C-alpha cells in the first residue's frame, strides 16, 4: 500500500517536471545538450571500468544542472536513468532512480542560481551528500515495499548495509567534480560562445 502511495508521489513529481519542459516549447538548442549529457552520464562509467563502482553519473548530472539550469539538470538525471534501464531492464526502482538523479540535477541548478557554488566547499559537500542521499532514496524503495513494519532496526540494518557503497558513491562524485567541474565549465562556455547556443534563455 505504502508502495502505491510512494509510486504516485514519484509519478507526480516526474509529471510536473516533464510538463513544464513541454510548456517551454523547447528548441533544438534546449534539447540537444540534455540528450548528450544524459548519454555521457549513463555510459561514462565504461571509461572507469578499472575502478569498481566509480560512476560519473551524479557528477555529470550536477554539472548539467549548473551549466544549463535546474530543469535541464532534472531531465538529464531522470532520462539518463530511464534510458539506461531501457537497455538494462526496467525494475521497480526505475521511478525512484529517475526522481533521485533528477532532483540531484535540479538542486544543483537551484544552488547555482542562488550562486552558492561560488564556494568550492559547498559544491563538494553537495556532491558528497548527493551520493549518500541517493543511496538512501534507493534503500527507501525496498524498505517501503518489502519490509513491514518499518522498525528502526530494519532501517539501521539496511542503511548500514549500504553505507560503504553510498560513501564511495559520494566520494567518487566529489572526485569527479574536483577534476571536471572547472574544465567542463570552460569547454561548455566556449561552445556557447562559438555557436551562440546553449544559453539558458537565448
Amino acid at each position, binding site marked *: 500500500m505504502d508502495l502505491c502511495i510512494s509510486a504516485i508521489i514519484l509519478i507526480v513529481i516526474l509529471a510536473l517536471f516533464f510538463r513544464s519542459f513541454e510548456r517551454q516549447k523547447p528548441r533544438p538548442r534546449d534539447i540537444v545538450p540534455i540528450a548528450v549529457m544524459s548519454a555521457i552520464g549513463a555510459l561514462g562509467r565504461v571509461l572507469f571500468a578499472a575502478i569498481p563502482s566509480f560512476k560519473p553519473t551524479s557528477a555529470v548530472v550536477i554539472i548539467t544542472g549548473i551549466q544549463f539550469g535546474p530543469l535541464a539538470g532534472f531531465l538529464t538525471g531522470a532520462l539518463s536513468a530511464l534510458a539506461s534501464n531501457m537497455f538494462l531492464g526496467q525494475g521497480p526502482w526505475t521511478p525512484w532512480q529517475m526522481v533521485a538523479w533528477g532532483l540531484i540535477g535540479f538542486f544543483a541548478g537551484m544552488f547555482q542560481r542562488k550562486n552558492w557554488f561560488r564556494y568550492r566547499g559547498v559544491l563538494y559537500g553537495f556532491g558528497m551528500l548527493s551520493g549518500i542521499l541517493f543511496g538512501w532514496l534507493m534503500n527507501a524503495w525496498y524498505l517501503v515495499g518489502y519490509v513491514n513494519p518499518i522498525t528502526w532496526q530494519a532501517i539501521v540494518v539496511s542503511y548500514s548495509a549500504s553505507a560503504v557503497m553510498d560513501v564511495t558513491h559520494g566520494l567518487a562524485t566529489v572526485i569527479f567534480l574536483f577534476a571536471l567541474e572547472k*574544465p567542463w565549465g*570552460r*569547454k561548455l562556455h*566556449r561552445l556557447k560562445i*562559438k555557436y*551562440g547556443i546553449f544559453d539558458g534563455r537565448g
Partner: protein
Amino acid sequence: MGVIEVNEYSFTYPASEKVVLNHVSISADMGEFLLLCGKSGCGKTTLLRCMKPEIAPVGSAEGTITRLSAEEVGFVFQNPDNQIVTDTVRHELAFGLENIGMPTGQIRARVAETALFFGIDEWIDKSVHEISGGEKQLLNLAAVIAMQPKILILDEPTSQLDPVARKNFLDMLVRVNRELGITVILSEHRLEEILPLADRVLFMKEGRIVYSGNVSEFAAYIFEEHKEYVKALPAAARIAKQAEIHMSLNPVFTFPMTVREGQEFLMKCDRKATDLLAKSIVPNSSGTGSTAKEEDARESLCLDVRDIWFQYAKQTPFVMKGLNLQIHWGQMHMLLGGNGSGKSTLLGILSKRFFADRGKIKLGKDRKMPRTALLPQNSKAMFSRDTVLEELESGGGTDQRLIRQLHLDALLHQHPYDLSGGEQQRLALAMVLREAPELLLLDEPTKGLDPFLKEELAAYLKEFTARGNTILCVTHDVEFAAEYGEVCSLLFEGEVLSTEKAAVFFRNNLFYTTDQNRILTSYLADN
C-alpha cells in the same frame, strides 16, 4: 526564372575581417544538377548554408537570396551519424513530416512511398545503429526528400563514405534529380564520379565564383587557369591533357570525363604515340623479383606477421584469419580492403592495443623492435585540452621543428576544435610523432581531405619514410594508394590476399584499381 537565386551576395563572420563570400551570384533552374567545387575553406559551406535560412550562419550580409521555407529546401550534411535525430529508421523518416504538422495518415503514406523509392523498406524496422554508414547517409537523404523539397542542397555528403557507399549514394542522388525533378546543389572534393553527372559546375576561389558553366569546358578552364586544381579532375580528362601535350594534338576543348569516354578518346588518337604515352604513365615494372632482391628483402624486413588469428571476444567471429604480412623498413605500405575486412584491427594489433590469439609477430633480421605510433581515423578522439599548445605540451616537451614542419606555429593558441579538418589531422599527427616513432600506422588518413590537403599530407609522409621510417597505411582511397604507395596489400575477411609493388598491384586488379589504370590497361591489353 530560377528556383533559387543568389544575387550579389556577400558575407562576413562577426569579429572577422575576412570576407567569406564576395558578391556571389547563382541561379539554379528547375531540375538542374549543380556541382559546387573549390579548395577547402573557399566558402562553399558558408554559401550553401546561407541558402537555407534556418541554419544560415550569423554575420553581416549584403545582397539577396530567394527566401524559401524549411520544407522547400532540403539540406544533407557531411556526417551521416550526426544529422540523424531519432533512434529508429522509421521514425527518422517521419521526423520532418511530424515537424510540419502533417496528419498521421498522410505521414504514414509518405513514409511508405519514400521508403519504397529509396529501397529502405527492407531495413525500415531497424534501429539506426544497426545500419551502415552508407545506409545512414541514404536515410538522411530519404528523410529530407520525404518532405518534398524543391531544392536539395548537399554539403560534401559522401566525404565520410567508402567508395562503394559513395557510388550508391550518388546513383540515388541522380535518381532523385532525374525522376523527381528536384534541383540539386552539391559540393564535393572528389570530382571523379560526380562531374559526369552534373549539368553545370560552379568553381569557387576565395569567396568568389570564378567559373560557372558546362562540365566539359570546365576541364579546359582548370587546365588553363587553375593548374593546382588539376589533380581533382577525372583521370580521363588528365590523360587526354597528357596526350594533348605529348602528342601535340590540336587543343582539346571537350575533355572526356568517364572511363569509357577516355578509352574512346585514346582510340581516336594516333596509335603509336598513345602506346608510348600509356606506357609512360603506367610504368611496366617487372613483377618477377631477382634472387638478389629477395636477399635484400630479408635484410630490410621490419616486422613479419605470421598466421595471426584474432577475435574480440570468445564465441564471436574471427576478425583476423591466419593473416600473413611482411613490413619492410623505409617503405610506405598501403593496406586496402573493404569495410569489416579487419584493417583497423590489424593496426590495433601492431600497436599493441589488441593482442592476437594465435600466431606470431617476428622482428626483422636486425632484431629491432620498432617504436610504433598510431594516427586514428578520427583526430577528434585524441583531443582533450583547450589549446593546440596544451595538447602538444602534454606528453613532454614540444618539438619546435615538428611544429613548423606541420605548419602549426600560427595555430598554437587556438582551440583544437576551431581548426579545420586538415589542421586537426596535422595536430594529431604532431601528437603521435612526439614519441619519434619508426613505424607509423595510419588509419584512413585521407578521409574528408581535398586533393591539396592530400598532397600536403603525402609530401610529409614521403619525407618521413625518406628518413628510414616505415609507414603502414590503411585506406579506401585507391587513387592515394596508387600514387604514393610503394607496396600495396589487399585484405579480405581477415586475410592478406596479395602484396605487390603498387604499379603491379593496380595493373593486376580488375575492380580494385584506379580509373587511370582502367582506361590505360584495357587500352594496352587491346594492343
